[in-house]
């Protein structure tokens, strides 16, 4: 396909609703030939795997890390590398890594050498840490209580060996969401971070009537803390009911909630999405709040290390973080990580009592 970018664009001529191009256009010939007819695969090293078709054909995949936020310079470089070793074919993974798709075995090693030379980080395949699913943060979103890319960077820097070489009992999926809208996969990740507020939204009564819809604003509140304030043609917030979630701000700009002193990060753990062994699980609260200590959030990194190291030390092979915790029990989780258990850990929202312990089955930890 020859791509064109004319100097002068006639916007009237634009076609609509053509949808994306057909995927066949982007598949390497060996994939087109063996589409749906793969036999097996082997993981040859942390960043290299080969898929073998029933026909005997093979395709090698070399995976490298990506910060997801990519400049066109970097993208061009990737394209160049793909041209050199992969006939131009490459893909991204659902976790934002880059996969070079090599059809010719002899090109695998040279590709990996060049990637290494250029300081690409090869790895992420198999039972280890892969890239972190994340969101916009302060780079682009009005709603962010924390930056997302920075958290990814500091966590991956800490656990980088587990991307490139070391193994974990099973895959460890990290995720970051910069606010409770949770555009990342936070609610079902092994270890995840979510930006939170801890103070009431500030009501800008003057702007409310211009910028916000009353019913939508009221309906947005998960705790029904918002009621109309007819006198002011605005709203009231019941401070006792507000959980600082910020959903009212999502629908109404006149309710800013960001607060540099009190915003920060919560850590949730033990979620997963796959159906292997245990059904998919939600992440649960491990640390209710850590401060936004820019630029490298040392408390977040430390707390994560406590969780991660305890998991690596304690889990059986193939156990995900949540499976390990379920087996040892939450009381042991808090004991072995040394993380404090606070009132915030005890649910008090709509389905709270479904999380209370309704058994005398308890392990003594002290």
């Amino acid at each position, binding site marked *: 396909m020859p*791509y064109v*970018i004319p100097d002068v*664009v006639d916007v009237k001529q*634009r076609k*609509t*609703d053509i*949808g*994306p*191009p*057909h*995927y066949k*256009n*982007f*598949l390497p010939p060996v994939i087109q030939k063996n589409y*749906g*007819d793969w*036999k097996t695969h*082997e993981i040859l090293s942390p960043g290299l795997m080969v898929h073998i078709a029933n026909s005997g054909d093979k395709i090698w995949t070399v995976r490298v*890390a*990506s910060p*997801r*936020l*990519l400049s066109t*310079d970097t*993208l*061009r470089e*990737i*394209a160049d590398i*793909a041209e050199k070793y992969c006939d*131009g074919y490459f*893909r*991204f993974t*659902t976790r*934002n890594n880059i996969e070079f798709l090599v059809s010719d075995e002899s090109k695998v090693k040279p590709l990996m050498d060049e990637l290494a030379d250029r300081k690409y980080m090869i790895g992420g395949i198999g039972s280890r840490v892969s890239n972190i*699913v994340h969101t916009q943060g*302060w*780079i*682009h979103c*009005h709603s962010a209580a924390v*930056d997302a890319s920075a958290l990814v*960077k500091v966590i*991956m*820097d800490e656990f980088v060996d587990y991307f490139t070489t070391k193994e974990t009992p099973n895959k460890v999926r990290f995720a970051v969401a910069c606010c409770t*809208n949770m*555009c990342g*996969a936070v*609610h079902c990740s092994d270890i995840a971070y979510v930006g939170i507020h801890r103070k009431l939204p500030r009501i800008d009564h003057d702007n409310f009537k211009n910028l916000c819809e009353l019913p939508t604003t009221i*309906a947005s509140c998960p705790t029904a803390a918002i009621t109309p304030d007819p006198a002011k043609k605005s709203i009231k917030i019941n401070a006792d009911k507000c959980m600082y979630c910020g959903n009212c701000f999502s629908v109404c700009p006149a309710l800013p909630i*960001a607060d540099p002193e009190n915003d920060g990060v919560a850590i949730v753990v033990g979620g997963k*999405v*796959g*159906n*292997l*062994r*245990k059904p998919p699980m*939600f992440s649960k609260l491990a640390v209710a709040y850590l401060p936004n200590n*820019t*630029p490298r959030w040392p408390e977040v990194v430390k707390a994560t290390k406590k969780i991660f190291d305890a998991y690596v030390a304690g889990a059986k*092979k*193939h156990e995900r973080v949540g499976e390990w915790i379920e087996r040892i029990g939450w009381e042991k989780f808090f004991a072995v990580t040394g993380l404090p258990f606070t009132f915030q850990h005890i649910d008090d929202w709509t389905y709270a009592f479904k999380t209370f312990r309704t058994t005398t089955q308890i392990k003594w930890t002290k």
Partner: protein
Amino acid sequence: MTKKYDTPLLDELEKGPFPSFVTEIKKAAAKSAMAADELGQLEKSFRDKVTYWKHGGIVGVRGYGGGVIGRYSQLADKFPGVAHFHTVRVNQTSGLFYTSETMKFFCDLWDKYGSGLTNFHGSTGDIILLGTVTENLEPLATVLSMNGFDLGGSGSAMRTPSCCVGPARCEWSMIDTLDITYDLTQEFQDELHRPQFPYKFKIKTVGCPVDCNASIARADLSIIGTWKGPIAIDQDKVKDYAKKGMNIQEEIVNMCPGKCITWDGNTLNINNADCLHCMHCITKLAGALKPTPPFGAVILIGAKAPFVIGATLSWVIVPFMELKPPYQELKDMIRNMWDWWNEYGKNRERIGELIIRRGMREFLEVCGLEPTPELVREPRNDPFWFWKEEDFEKKPWEEFLK
């Protein structure tokens, strides 16, 4: 050429082994004033611990109701390059495959019309082109369409469907995830580009229960491949695994949730009647075990982020549906549920929330689906439930007495 800012805090994030997003912004900043001011504003955010983007702002392209996220800086005076800094969502290719040519096209396009910063990809699956001004939107969209690409979704619309790599490069895919995604995207162009629903609607398709695209957690409609046949076993390969040091008893037998595998040191046996189709044994003994037909999909509904009722995982609504082109049964079902949702859904009410509000029965009836035990983790426990007049006519116990 472009403005330079001191960024002592962000510079800290160029240290350490993992590729740095700050380096990426700096690369773009060398060429783009927008990217340069993005860097400047971001440093200030890091200093002040707060975001400096304004709330919302509607922008778009003619004929479309979505695909662009309007974004304006609160500090336009200080950082004029990001006074406008809109995101364009471009519908990705099924399976996220690219050629170098295509990628270079995107680079040229975005150097011309935007900041030079991108996300490959957004969490929903779109190509995210980060940072442009309102004036550039029309020409950008036009050039995209000239070259065979189209915008993705935003707002109260169907969002860009996405999928796992599936049959393109995975031996376990039991449905054609790429084709289903492409076909549904084409079928529902109008619903994708012109918000007409109560709220957003996401579709994610994966080839098997491993769910490499988090479909069950992040899609209103989750389509997950599965199988009905027995698991085929290559006993020699199983023995190879054992020889290479796998503890089959511990790692496979004891971890099988169906408790349906036995291993006597020589032969692996699976009682398929008790298999829960979880994929554990198949993936950990890759190459030795494989699912056999009939192949199809479990269809689930309702996953979403926490607002307003708490995060949900999708719920099974069809335990097994064969999925062959043109996927008519699936499409009809989707249209039926959308009609119902459009009729009853409140503003900003996801389809799962509506199901909770009006009851699963109504939803199933609308979709023409039967109640079956596969839909529930367990039947209800509290002894209150509805009856419809038609239920009174059925007297299933008359069977018992025979």
